[in-house]
């Protein structure tokens, strides 16, 4: 006996209607897939044409498969239909919000909301009054009147709030903006896709299509995951893939990009090591200076080695970034480990110090960098002031004759990067301390007791118990700190003026790609730099993972 005999006529009609809807959807999306290439939709850049065609084609194929499955009363058709209609519903909703200019109004919310807060407070007061009903269960008359009063107060508060924030005008504003072809189409789309979702989601349809329990779990799981997943795809994965495309073009973000192939990458990675006849030989004598610039030179007695690159700034930035990472990571991890051990003790005031040391990591980087800019000022900064005080005191007391160095922290190429390292280490140390503290909490106390019984001193306990048991935390801290250090930007951008520092000593990779993309109008080249940086960070992280696998004792 066919399954259709067990299905009520209404559900059968809905499924047949959904099948037709899927066929119609497949035809429309197939048309959308070819529309950009036959001139029906014009004015789109190449990447948008490809994206629209690919997505439309996929939707058409999926819809066709779903139509076939629904005709055969297979549940797979229901799943595909729900997925397609849900995505289309979300897209229609976004178009409705955009056409209605709701996104633009979010800025205006800051202006209007403040006026309505007191009236929301009145409504909240009414709500609080309703909670008093619980105390009057034995006095029904009073309870009745209290309920009436509280409802009146709530309604009055809400009405006043709506009036004060001009909600009605806002609603009319949205409707007026939606009263145009795009708005009306998107509203119709919203309704149609909503009905289509309802048609497939209803229980009778699920039963008719032989849905199982795990099907419902699957659908619910994807439904809950969808907001995060869609956000990830649209705001992260999408732009990421787009930047990969742009890295192969000469995009300036304004005009249609031209395909360059690997030219950007070739320029970035074009570096030469050329022997020099003398340490002072000019670069133009050994390399084509129309192509290469001198990055640096290594001197060996009466000769040397010239390092020349097609893009010297990239290699300078790479050198600075790796140097920064080499020093900033240990300086923010090792003190954090030691601090965590101290803060893990039962001494009075430790909770206070835990909070104090964590504050730099939650403070705004911009604010911190501005403060440190003042501290580092060579003429009136506090750091040099206290150094001078200390030297004067020492010279006075011991007649030492020490010369005040008057360190030019940010304007000397030998100290500029160090200045940034100090800030970064100081700021990151607190957060790493908290991570280590969490790891220390998980170390069983019995291990320390047993070690103490065996006669181990504090250093032996730290070296033989604490460090190995903290291996997972240490690995995580070092990996994340390294990734963060390789992407250093804000401190350099705010602290240094110019941001590249004296003689490009604080030019970092992220700063360089920012400069290329947003100041030099070279978005394609900046994208290529970003992907090279990704490969470098990925490589470093892989090395750390390999080391962790080899050395980890307590993986299980």
């Amino acid at each position, binding site marked *: 006996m066919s399954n259709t005999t067990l299905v009520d006529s209404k559900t059968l009609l809905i499924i047949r209607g959904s099948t037709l809807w899927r066929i119609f959807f497949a035809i429309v999306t197939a048309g959308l897939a070819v529309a950009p290439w036959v001139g029906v939709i014009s004015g789109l850049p190449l990447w948008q044409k490809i994206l629209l065609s690919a997505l439309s084609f996929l939707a058409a194929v999926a819809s066709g498969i779903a139509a076939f499955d629904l005709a055969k009363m297979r549940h797979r058709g229901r799943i595909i239909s729900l997925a397609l209609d849900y995505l289309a519903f979300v897209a229609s909703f976004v178009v409705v919000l955009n056409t209605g200019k*709701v996104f633009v109004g979010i800025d205006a919310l800051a202006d209007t909301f403040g006026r309505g807060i007191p009236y929301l407070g009145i409504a909240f007061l009414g709500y609080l009054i309703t909670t008093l009903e619980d105390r009057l269960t034995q006095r029904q008359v009073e309870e009745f009147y209290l309920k009436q009063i509280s409802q009146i107060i709530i309604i009055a508060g809400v009405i006043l*709030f709506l009036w004060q924030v001009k909600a009605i005008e806002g609603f009319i504003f949205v409707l007026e903006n939606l009263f145009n072809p795009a708005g009306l189409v998107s509203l119709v789309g919203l309704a149609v896709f909503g009905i289509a979702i309802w048609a497939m989601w209803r229980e009778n349809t699920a039963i008719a299509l032989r849905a199982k329990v795990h099907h419902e779990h699957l659908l619910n799981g994807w439904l809950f995951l969808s907001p995060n997943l869609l956000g990830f795809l649209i705001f992260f994965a999408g732009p990421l893939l787009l930047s990969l495309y742009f890295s192969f073009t000469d995009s300036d973000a304004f005009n249609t990009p031209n395909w360059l192939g690997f030219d950007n990458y070739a320029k970035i990675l074009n570096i030469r090591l050329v022997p020099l006849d003398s340490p002072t030989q000019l670069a133009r004598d050994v390399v084509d200076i129309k192509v290469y*610039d001198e990055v640096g030179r290594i001197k060996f007695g009466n000769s040397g080695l010239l390092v020349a690159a097609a893009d010297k700034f990239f290699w300078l930035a790479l050198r600075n970034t790796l140097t920064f990472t080499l020093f900033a990571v240990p300086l923010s991890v090792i003190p954090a480990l030691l601090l965590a051990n101290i803060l893990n003790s039962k001494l009075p005031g430790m909770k206070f110090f835990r909070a104090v040391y964590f504050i730099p990591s939650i403070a705004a980087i911009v604010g911190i960098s501005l403060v440190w800019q003042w501290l580092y000022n060579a003429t009136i900064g506090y750091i040099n002031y206290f150094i001078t005080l200390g030297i004067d005191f020492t010279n006075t007391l011991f007649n030492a004759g020490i010369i005040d160095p008057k360190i030019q922290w940010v304007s*000397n*190429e030998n100290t500029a990067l160090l200045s940034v390292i100090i800030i970064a280490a100081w700021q990151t140390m607190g957060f790493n301390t908290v991570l280590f503290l969490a790891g220390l909490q998980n170390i069983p106390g019995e291990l320390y007791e047993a070690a103490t019984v065996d006669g181990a001193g504090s250093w032996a306990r730290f070296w033989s118990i604490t460090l190995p048991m903290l291996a997972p935390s240490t690995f995580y801290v070092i990996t994340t700190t390294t990734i963060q250090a390789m992407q250093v930007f804000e401190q350099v951008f705010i602290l240094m003026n*110019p941001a590249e520092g*004296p*003689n490009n000593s604080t030019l970092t990779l992220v700063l360089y790609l920012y400069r290329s993309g*947003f100041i030099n109008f070279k978005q394609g080249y900046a994208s290529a730099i970003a992907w090279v940086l990704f490969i470098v960070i990925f490589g470093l992280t892989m090395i750390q993972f390999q080391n962790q696998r080899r050395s980890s004792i307590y993986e299980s």
Partner: protein
Amino acid sequence: MKHKLNWKVLSLFAAIAMLFAACAPAATEVATEAPAEPAQPAATEVVATEAPAEPAPAAEEVALRWRTRPDNQEEIDVYSNISSELDGQLEGITLTYEPGGTEGANYQEQLRAEVAAGTAPDVFWIPGTDVADFATRGLILNMADLAAATDGFDVAAFYPGPMYHLTYNPETGADGAESGALWGLPRDVSTFALYLNLDLINEAGAPDPRELAANGEWNWDAFLDVAQKTRALGSDIYGYGASAWWGPYGTWLNAAGGGFFTPDRAACALDTEESLAGLAFQASLYQDYDVATPYGEDPEPPFRAGKVAMFQNGRWATPGVRTVEFEWDVVELPKGPAGNAGNWLFWGAYVVNAKTEHPEEAWQLVQALTTAETQGKVAALGANIPSRVSQEAFDAFLTFTPPANNQAFLNGLADSPATEGPLWAGSWPEYDKIMGPAIQAVLTGGRTVEDFGATICDEANKVFNQ
């Protein structure tokens, strides 16, 4: 349970209400007090008649957004006031003023992102060095046709330096009123001067630079003399301070007869004898005579703390300097071997978004923003000098003191300053990033002037189009 339901209903209602509240039209801005009319001016050099431009009639009410880059709240207030007044004067046009961020708040980067996204205002300000980049990429409107159809509009009413770049046609290489190109109108101009700490100069027994300038004796030797005498007051007192960007160090190259580029601005000229001479003198201030604040350190804090005798900066710094607690004034830059001070003419322009839906109205707005009256109101702040070459503009500028010696800035204008500008034949940002670190290396002693001269143009010439 009942309370939870009420709470949920209330919360949902509030959320929906907020959504619609967000869509309510924003309130209009409140106009601030307009600055008072200026008093009678001091003498000026250049006088040109200002030709009023007739606005084209507007067919229907159009809404225009416009933006400029104010450096402080006082400027925002003045521009807001100007916007309100122009809103009433320009028939059929509703204006919305958007105060952009300061230079430190990445005004340019934000603007470029908006231009790329298609959400930039109809009219906006850009620095002079950005004009070529915006024009060659088709981001700003060529208003030559609109200007030609406007009775009374005269390119010569503005300073010729900025107008050269604003009328430069990259396709033909021509400039001027007949070039077929008009990329914008200059908002204002500025020059450098030396802000003087008169208390320090008097205490050091150094001659008053203002008197030296008035007597025609204000040159590099006199400058060095004042700097050395004030430096001798103490190890924490400096004779001279300047920020580390192309503006300050460029003046020394210019004053020696050199400069950044060849006259056609198509090749590097940093290695000429004159440029190197200017660089050598400037380097001596840091290395040999040790009279200057450390290069790369911000000199403004020590100047404001009363520890720098002469601080090189533009007119835009005046509002901030007015709050210092010592006696101060300004003097023009000292004249160099070439016979002039090598000053810069800084400027920025109001331009029209190429994607504006209302080009004619936007052109009206640009004209209205650059009338002498409007520029006078901005000049009242003391931040910059009007870009119109007119007596009325100078009158407005000179009467807003301190500094008492406002004339020093106008003298800088009259001293054949080099106009800042874009590189139509290359990339100015890239040129700056090559030149800056190399110059800094010389000034901080990390590199010799000879080595700089031998190598700088090899690298710098790459930024020019082949």
